[in-house]
């Protein structure tokens, strides 16, 4: 698996898009620090961008890579290697190279700005960890969609819809349901609903860590009670982890019956 991973990673690291993505984060980091002139504020702005953008880029990269490397995958399939090894190698190759672009692109400006002398280092670390989780989750989801759709256009369409749903529509439905069922106790419902969307889960995790939960009002208080404690943190990370594991597991099931 590491052999495939290595080559997928090399291939991606040399592609123009990895650099564009890296430079984008680099520029973003510098601009935010320059404009805000404050690490903590820059981190909050950054969070809003990362939480929407990493899933989008992960989804598009995942789908694109799968369809573009189809013939090459066929070449690999004819070699004495297990199917799951090939795809897990490719999956990890993409996820790791995206994570590297993210970590380096943002890391460099923040380090130059004096991150180590600031108290925000843990918040920044959490931001990167959550960003990496989102990369791994959405590349896995994208692979699932691509594996289930022979048709490129359809695959792309479903992948973008999936992103749109989790990044925007889910929140809309969530808010409407909170308004409609306003008379009922909703703390448990909102806790559980958050768990079912990795983007929401990441957002809340960071918001609470940044200690601006007061902005969130009553719900914020409940979340703070839950997420603020160590147990809440652990559970949230376990759920994020499950969000990686489940799509990866389904990918392997799907692979067993797939014709190439």
């Amino acid at each position, binding site marked *: 698996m590491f052999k495939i991973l290595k080559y997928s990673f090399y291939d991606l690291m040399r592609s123009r898009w990895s650099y564009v993505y890296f430079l984008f984060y680099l520029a973003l980091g510098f601009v935010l620090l320059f404009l805000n002139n404050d690490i903590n504020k820059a981190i909050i702005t950054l969070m809003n961008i990362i939480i929407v953008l990493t899933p989008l880029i992960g989804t598009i990269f995942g789908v694109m890579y799968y369809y573009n490397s189809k013939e090459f995958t066929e070449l690999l399939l004819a070699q004495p290697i297990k199917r799951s090894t090939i795809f897990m190698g490719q999956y990890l190759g993409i996820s790791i190279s995206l994570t590297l672009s993210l970590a380096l692109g943002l890391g460099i400006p923040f380090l130059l700005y004096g991150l180590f002398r600031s108290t925000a280092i843990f918040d920044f670390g959490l931001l990167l960890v959550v960003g990496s989780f989102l990369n791994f989750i959405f590349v896995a989801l994208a692979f699932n969609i691509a594996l289930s759709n022979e048709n490129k256009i359809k695959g792309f369409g479903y992948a973008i819809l999936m992103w749109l749903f989790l990044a925007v529509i889910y929140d809309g439905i969530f808010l409407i349901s909170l308004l409609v069922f306003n008379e009922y106790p909703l703390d448990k419902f909102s806790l559980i609903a958050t768990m079912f969307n990795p983007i929401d889960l990441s957002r809340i995790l960071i918001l609470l860590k940044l200690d601006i939960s007061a902005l969130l009002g009553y719900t914020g208080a409940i979340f703070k009670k839950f997420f603020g404690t160590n147990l809440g943190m652990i559970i949230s990370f376990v759920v994020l982890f499950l969000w990686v594991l489940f799509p990866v597991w389904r990918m392997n099931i799907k692979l067993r019956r797939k*014709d190439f």
Partner: protein
Amino acid sequence: MIRISNLHKRFGKLIVLDGLDLEIKSGGIFAILGPNGSGKTTLIKSILGMVIPNSGDIKIDGKSVLKKWDYRNQINYLPQIANFPGNLTVNELIAMVKNLRPKKSNDIDLIELFGLQPFLDKKLGNLSGGTKQKVNIVLTFMFDSDLIILDEPTTGLDPISLINLKEIIQKEKEKGKTLLITTHIMSLVDEIADKIVFLLDGNIYFKGSIDELKLQTKQTDLEHAIANLMTKENV
């Protein structure tokens, strides 16, 4: 020896292989022929484990190969379309495939034969279709395996490379290898094939030597004999 028994494969409603039985003895060149969509590639990919049959069994040297993967170490496969990761160089690709197959390889001779030296450090994305096909051929023939499967090997090749390819195929045959070749170029079949396997509607319609085929169809050349096989079915 390959023994395929009662192989069924459906893609949705389309039945591609319909209870196919085939026995291929070791040694010699077998041309797998048939009209477009007759199941040639599906048959080949089933042997390679890339297509998973609905039912039936495929045995190589007496052992079932379904759901296995290590048997592929004894198969060289030339896919129909050559397309590689655009950001790797030719050298890196060859090194990678060698790395994936712990086996002795003679890539240097083949690279020289096909005149690929000037391209070794070029990225695969910048190569022409014919050059990619040459790289593809090098990757296929650089290992010493008992079974060699070629899916449309002549696509995009210039005449000199074509002659080289035919020579390699003959050499492998002389070493006692089994070669399965699909092609639409009848002159190639006429020149190199020992036996013909003709697929039609997901089953074997004819299996035998070229002479037997000509005798059966009462034609003097192969092209017409094959055409005769195809039209007979339609009448």
